[in-house]
């Protein structure tokens, strides 16, 4: 007689809960030493439930099928010379930023989940973190495999791993994850599992990836959607985590709210990079950053917070400011990279006339008034043979580590400056959000590894910026950096396409 097939619920119970054991001769608190110091109170771990009821056997089965589909597409892409089918060689620079800025963070997420998966007393949470840790490892691997094909044809892909904790703009995502990973297990889960996964990764992996498809990059859209299908599971888990923590004890509510405030703000700052990728680096446009923000942050995030209101959770702090900034950040960020194009590991450019008209249409209240003039100045200088590269190094925010490029929303041509003094030292911030985060844990953030200050301290080689870029960052100067105009990437592309 054939064995009766177990229902999902029974299987989940057998292969998750029933894998746990009682501690008869060891102290449970000593086994899970990090469970209490953050102030989170767990009264009953058995209330933890994975809504997908995913067990390890099913996990391997479906993940391996996803991988087979994915690698078949990578093979087809490579065998078909897929690199020749992208819309424009400028597009590939968004992928360079993806590989250097994002893929290493997938690895940090893998490490983070492996760590916290060991730290929870509840077996359901441990199994879920194990799967997520494996997912994140899969993401970095598939991304490296997908983009290794571009490495054969374009500059700027060769030293991503070396660059991760050295290059000035890569310190932004790197320090974001260092902050999360050096927090306790519950803060990490709220930071990455909830705040980041539920709203923010959608913005990267859905509209941007749809844009990759629209620009002819089948390899990237496929790893993106394949990764996001795992993220859909992570998001769901993130939401369950929040509900679980809030239901466990009322004392958890203010702690969770504080983490939500912190990590939504940090995530918003981090995503400035994705904003410019969408608005400026995709030659064929799907939707503007502002539109994507409205769908995935305002609409999806708004629904989420309405649902959580019954626990006493409110919209993240500074949501009104974030609402205004969506009109500005992508322009401000791309301008920063354009003017630092000599120090970036990818190419930058002035948007074309058609692109500027598209930006005017998508940003009717801000582009022509505040940002078109910057590009007209850039064009004027370029025409005079003085392509503008800024000469000095920028002031950085101590918390997010981004150059202090954000402006006052009440006065959009004025840089927003905030500072505070702690133990006699002055610290600078781009915003109240970043300043609040510092003030809550100054002993953590006084340790910020700010790339500009590190260069001045002599810790990044030198003495000149050229040596820092070439020797410490290992950028191939003259090939990886500078404007797309006149770059080896552009020359090769023209050769392949047979245009002068």
């Amino acid at each position, binding site marked *: 007689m054939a064995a009766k097939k177990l229902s999902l619920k029974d299987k989940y119970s057998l292969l998750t809960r029933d894998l746990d054991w009682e501690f008869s001769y060891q102290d449970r608190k000593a086994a899970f*030493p*990090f469970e209490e*110091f*953050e*102030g989170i109170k767990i009264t009953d771990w058995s209330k933890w439930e994975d809504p997908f009821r995913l067990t390890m056997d099913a996990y391997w089965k479906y993940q391996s099928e996803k991988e087979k589909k994915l690698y078949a597409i990578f093979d087809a892409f490579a065998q078909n010379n897929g690199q020749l089918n992208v819309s424009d060689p400028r597009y590939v620079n968004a992928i360079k930023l993806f590989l250097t800025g994002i893929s290493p963070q997938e690895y940090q997420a893998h490490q983070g989940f492996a760590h916290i998966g060991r730290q929870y007393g509840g077996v359901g949470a441990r199994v879920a973190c194990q799967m997520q840790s494996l997912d994140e490892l899969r993401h970095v691997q598939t991304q490296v495999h997908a983009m290794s094909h571009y490495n054969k044809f374009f500059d700027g892909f060769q030293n991503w791993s070396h660059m991760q904790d050295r290059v000035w703009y890569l310190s932004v995502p790197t320090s974001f994850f260092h902050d999360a990973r050096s*927090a*306790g297990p519950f*803060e990490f889960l709220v930071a990455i599992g909830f705040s980041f996964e539920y709203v923010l990764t959608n913005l990267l992996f859905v509209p941007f990836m749809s844009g990759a498809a629209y620009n002819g990059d089948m390899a990237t859209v496929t790893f993106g959607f394949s990764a996001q299908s795992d993220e859909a599971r992570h998001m769901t888990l993130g939401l369950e985590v929040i509900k679980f923590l809030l239901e466990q004890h009322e004392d958890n509510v203010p702690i969770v709210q504080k983490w939500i405030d912190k990590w939504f703000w940090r995530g918003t700052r981090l995503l400035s990079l994705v904003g410019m990728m969408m608005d400026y680096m995709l030659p064929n446009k799907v939707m503007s950053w502002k539109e994507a923000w409205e769908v995935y942050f305002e609409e999806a995030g708004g629904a989420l917070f309405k649902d959580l209101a019954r626990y006493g959770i409110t919209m993240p702090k500074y949501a009104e400011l974030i609402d205004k900034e969506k009109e500005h950040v992508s322009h*401000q960020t791309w*301008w*920063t990279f354009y*003017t*630092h194009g000599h120090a970036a590991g990818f190419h930058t450019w002035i948007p074309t006339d058609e692109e500027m008209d598209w930006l005017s249409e998508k940003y009717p209240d801000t582009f022509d*008034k*505040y940002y078109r*003039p*910057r590009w*007209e*100045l850039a064009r004027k*200088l370029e025409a005079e043979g*003085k392509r*503008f590269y*800024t*000469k*000095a*190094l*920028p*002031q*950085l925010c101590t918390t997010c580590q981004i*150059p*202090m*490029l954000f*402006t006052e929303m009440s006065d*959009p*041509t*004025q*840089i927003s*400056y905030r*500072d505070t003094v702690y*133990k006699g*030292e*002055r*610290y*600078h911030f781009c915003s109240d959000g970043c300043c609040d985060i510092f003030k809550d*844990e*100054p*002993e*953590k*953030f*006084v*340790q*910020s*590894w*700010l790339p*500009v*200050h590190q260069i*001045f*301290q*002599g810790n990044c080689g030198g003495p000149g910026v050229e040596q820092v870029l070439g020797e410490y960052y290992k950028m191939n100067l003259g090939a990886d950096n500078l404007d797309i105009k006149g770059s080896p990437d552009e020359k090769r592309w023209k050769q392949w396409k047979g245009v002068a």
Partner: protein
Amino acid sequence: MPVHAYTPNYTGVVRDRVENFHGNQIVYAGWDHHLMFCAAFAFPVPPTMTFRQLRDEVMAEGFEPHPEWPQIDWAHTTWLLNGESFVPQLDVALIDQGIDHKSLLRFQTPDLKGFQDAGV
């Protein structure tokens, strides 16, 4: 609580204390409403440098690409030092007029409104 750490009484190492800059201190300088420069600049300079040297040599290097830089009338330029209004003494050392490590100097040139009068 200055940090939520597992280790009791945890304190962090202050990475940017002035001693780490080999005799220099950091001074930030920003030109209000001139966003050709995406952010204020950070300059490592000796605390004994005069304000004149800072303005005419160090800051000039960063700001001179701006078409309005040569037009600045310094007699009518206003300054903020760490958010407070400030009158620089040109031939006095930075440190002797309160411009210490990680101080932010902002200056305003209300007659110069940036490229295309757009704050650029």
